[in-house]
Each structure stands twice: as structure tokens, then as C-alpha cells.
């Protein structure tokens, strides 16, 4: 898929940051419930991440689907590896696997103290 000009840019994004979420809207203003759900999970785990808004970038929006062979957005990448979309992230959060992924990959999590 070297004919896809978005690939290089996507690769650059996921090389540059440990945790990258390709999403609709921004972490502060998600434009889709599924993107919002993943933002919420990452926030609950206290993980620093970069949100890439695919709505503002049609090339990335289409490119990311072939890049990962995954038809939907959001998509979460940790240390360059595709971890999953909304359903998988939610499931992994609920059963504790997601926290383990971050721990295994040396990504800091910081759960807020429960009030």
C-alpha cells in the first residue's frame, strides 16, 4: 500500500507519540459517541494521548482504514501498534487488559484518586 500517501503521515504520528487515538473530533470535543467513549476510558486510566481528528483530514480519514485494515473510527495505537476500536477498548478496559497493555508497553497510567 505504498501508493497510499496517508500511510507515511499515519506512521509518523504513531512513531512520534506513545499513545495515539484516531478519532472524530478532538479529545475535548468528540464528534461521535464511540470516539467519546474511548477518550473517556483513556481519561479514566490517566493516560496521556494524542487525538488525531480525522474529520479535519479526509486523507487520514480514508487512509487509516486501509492502514490498519479496520473499517471504523476510533482506532487506538499504543507504541505503534493497533490495539483496537471502541468495542475492543471498552471490553479490555472492563476486564483490566487495557491497563496491562499500557503497563507492558511502559506507558504511564495514573488513575485519579477516588473521592
Amino acid at each position, binding site marked *: 500500500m505504498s501508493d497510499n500517501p496517508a500511510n507515511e503521515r499515519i506512521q509518523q504520528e504513531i512513531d512520534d507519540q506513545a499513545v495515539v487515538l484516531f478519532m472524530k473530533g478532538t479529545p475535548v470535543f468528540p464528534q461521535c459517541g*464511540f470516539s467519546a467513549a474511548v477518550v473517556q476510558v483513556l481519561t479514566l486510566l490517566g493516560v496521556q494521548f494524542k487525538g488525531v481528528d480525522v474529520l479535519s483530514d479526509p486523507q487520514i480519514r480514508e487512509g487509516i*482504514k486501509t492502514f490498519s485494515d*479496520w*473499517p471504523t473510527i476510533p482506532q487506538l495505537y499504543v507504541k505503534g501498534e493497533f*490495539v*483496537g*476500536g471502541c*468495542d*475492543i477498548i471498552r*471490553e479490555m478496559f472492563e476486564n483490566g487488559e487495557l491497563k496491562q497493555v499500557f503497563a507492558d508497553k511502559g506507558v504511564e497510567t495514573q488513575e485519579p484518586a477516588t473521592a
Partner: protein
Amino acid sequence: MPMQAGDIERLIKEAMPDAQVMIEDLRGDGDHYAAMVVSKQFKGKSRVQQHQMVYKALQGNMGDALHALALQTGVPEEVD
């Protein structure tokens, strides 16, 4: 164009004949579904790979005609 639950099930079963498929129309609007797919073919596959197999079975409808399909996949217990 929304997809009918029956079409979703048919496409999945065509690709994975052994699959047990349970589909729920979450809002009754033919556009937001939840599906549980259980198949022996998922054995040894990562969760991402399992979902990719279902998306492939849906032949490009996912993210297009099919806006929202909350997906859960699993391997039948007797195979474990």
C-alpha cells in the same frame, strides 16, 4: 441505507458457516446493532483479528451501510 439484521447474519454465516450469530437491534431503527459472534475459526486469533474476520464477512458494509455494530466475538467453550 440501513441493513437488516437478517442480512448481517447471512453475510457472517456465509463467510463462517459454523458461527453462532446473535444480533440485537439496539434502537429498533435498523441502524444500530449489537452482534455476538461465536466461531471455532476464532481460535488462536487475537481480538483484533477476530473482529477483522467479521468485518471482512460484512464485505465493506461496516462503516458504510452499517453505521454502528457493537461487536463481541468468542470461541465456543467446548473447543478451549
